[in-house]
């Protein structure tokens, strides 16, 4: 553990992962089956270590962008969980006044510039934000999360080239969960060693076991340091897995059930952290159980608060189309 996070820090990372897991489980097991959520929701269950490890390595002033699978990132940046639930439920107290929903969460108070469900779109937007940071010399960096599917878009290629050419402080995080909806990495990508794609853009890169939060956190700290200090883009590939389907109605017919079971049994990031806390750090099991219960209660209360929020009034529909002239 030398140089890595202390027990206290690991406990913090563990608590963050639980917060995300319980948030998503609330949707998966209660709100969605009850018919309270319309449209699509994409759950982050299984990928918690990547979001937690990376976001905890950032500074509060930094910008974060992500994909349609963005509840966790939004929560980790510090938005009140009740307001995220309210947005996903389409209520007036939602972060975006009920206009964005699950796939378009945004909170400028935490510099969470948002979830973006056009695969790959957040990478050039992130590069543009990074250009602004460099131009204004404000010391911020921009963390843009995307899945391995996004690496096959033209947006990734164009933005990587430009970010490197112009030496922009863009922290690219590829969350490789192995499936772009239903198509596996092997069936979609000629080069499956994803971090090596950075070589052709002359971009600093690293690959990490995305199921081990401590390793992600340490790698993300290194990456953020390079990005901020040297004003250059970095690519961190986190190899992870989503235990749930791509979205709430996914039949999962494209992957063997045993694969998910095996991944959950052997590589669940929360279980791995828990084992380390209990075995290596000797944190009493009772403390961990108490922590779990406390976080579960927080999430339950947030969901209840969100459910008390009313739907937005019709007249909001035509507001916010344009910014008013100064």
């Amino acid at each position, binding site marked *: 553990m030398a140089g890595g996070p202390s027990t206290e820090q690991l406990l913090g990372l563990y608590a963050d992962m639980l917060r995300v897991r319980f948030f998503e489980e609330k949707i998966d097991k209660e709100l969605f089956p009850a018919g309270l959520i319309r449209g699509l929701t994409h759950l982050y269950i299984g990928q918690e270590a990547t979001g937690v490890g990376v976001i905890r390595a950032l500074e509060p002033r930094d910008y974060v962008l992500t994909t349609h699978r963005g509840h966790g990132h939004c929560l980790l940046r510090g938005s009140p969980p009740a307001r995220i639930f309210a947005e996903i439920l389409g209520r007036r107290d939602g972060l975006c006044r009920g206009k*964005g929903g699950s796939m378009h969460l945004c*909170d400028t108070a935490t510099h969470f510039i948002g979830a973006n469900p056009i695969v790959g779109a957040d990478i050039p937007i992130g590069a543009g934000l990074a*250009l602004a940071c460099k131009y204004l010399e404000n010391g911020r960096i921009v963390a843009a999360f995307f899945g391995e599917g996004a690496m096959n878009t033209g947006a990734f290629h164009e933005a990587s*080239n430009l970010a490197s050419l112009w030496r922009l402080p863009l922290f690219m995080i590829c969350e490789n969960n192995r499936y772009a909806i239903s198509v596996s990495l092997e069936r979609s990508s000629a080069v499956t060693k994803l971090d090596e794609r950075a070589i052709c853009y002359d971009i600093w890169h690293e690959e990490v076991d995305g199921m081990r939060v401590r390793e992600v956190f340490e790698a993300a700290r290194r990456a953020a340091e390079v990005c901020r200090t040297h004003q250059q883009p970095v690519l961190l590939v986190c190899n992870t897995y989503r235990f749930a389907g791509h979205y709430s109605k996914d039949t999962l017919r494209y992957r063997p059930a045993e694969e998910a079971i095996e991944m959950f049994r052997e590589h669940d990031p929360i279980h791995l952290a828990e084992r380390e806390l209990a075995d290596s750090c000797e944190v009493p099991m009772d403390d961990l159980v108490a922590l779990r219960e406390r976080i579960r209660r927080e999430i339950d209360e947030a969901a209840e608060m969100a459910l008390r929020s009313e739907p937005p009034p019709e007249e909001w529909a035509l507001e916010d189309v344009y*910014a008013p002239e100064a």
Partner: protein
Amino acid sequence: MPPKPEPGMREVAYALAVRTALTEEMRRDERVFVMGEDIAVYGGVYGATRGLLHEFGEKRVRDTPISEAAIAGMAAGAALGGLRPVAEIMYCDFLSIALDAIANNAAKLRYMSGGQLALPLVIRTSAGGHGYAAQHSQSLEAWVAHIPGLKVLTPGTCADARGLLKSAIRDPNPVVVIEHKALYETRGLMPAEERLEPLGVARVARAGDAVTLVSWSAMAGVCLEAAEELAREGIEVEVIDLRTLLPLDIETVLASVRKTGRLVVAHEAVQYGGFGGEVVAQLAERAWGHLKAPPLRVGSRFAPIPFAEPLESYVLAGKHDIMEAVRGVL
């Protein structure tokens, strides 16, 4: 023939009018910067950004690789980060490559965030047939004018090329400015003094009482030529240059049609599904009782723009089509 300079006016090429707007706004506001293909060292394929690199340096005048998706996406990101980007997409035909960033992102991020975000950015591009064949000649204003969240400007004069662009740069929203490539080298008048032109205000370019003729971009100039010829036949046409399609000043058109009772809308874009249909529909909905004849549209024929001159001339709408339509509503 360019009009004679009047007091307080200055004769310039359209490209210089664009460059004047960029220069003035970059001097005024440090956050304004320009990016695009061949705009810095080369000065833009039509010279609209010539000299900017020398005055403002590489930080604010940025040549990009041929990456339209990233140019537009990064402009959106830079706007989110507090800058005022003016990005150039060389031909509006290439909007197809940049359209996700423009139509799905720049136009919608403010709305989807419930008003938290603002995207003050300008996309400059060029339209119009000029001997470049099917992929460098289209007039695609209807593509972007269909998207809530965007503003769409189509300057057809030097005064507007400068004044509307200046307003676009100061606007807190994403604005697509569609210039016309046949105009860049033409000369016209712009105010000697700095002047902003308001968005959503049409201009009555020529007064008349027989027919209302609505147009924008270079076609507004063609309409004026047609009107002069028709005047020799005793037909006094009122020519309205919309100048901006989004926001649209339909009131000026309504007022004119209430007077003339006859309407022709002319544009260079393909007539089928063109923005002229929107103008005619709004007039039909709101001024039906004033119309003495069915309104007519003039637009290009339903084909990609061909290369050879006689073919291009045949496909593109022009002065004679306009004159025929005006006679047709009388």
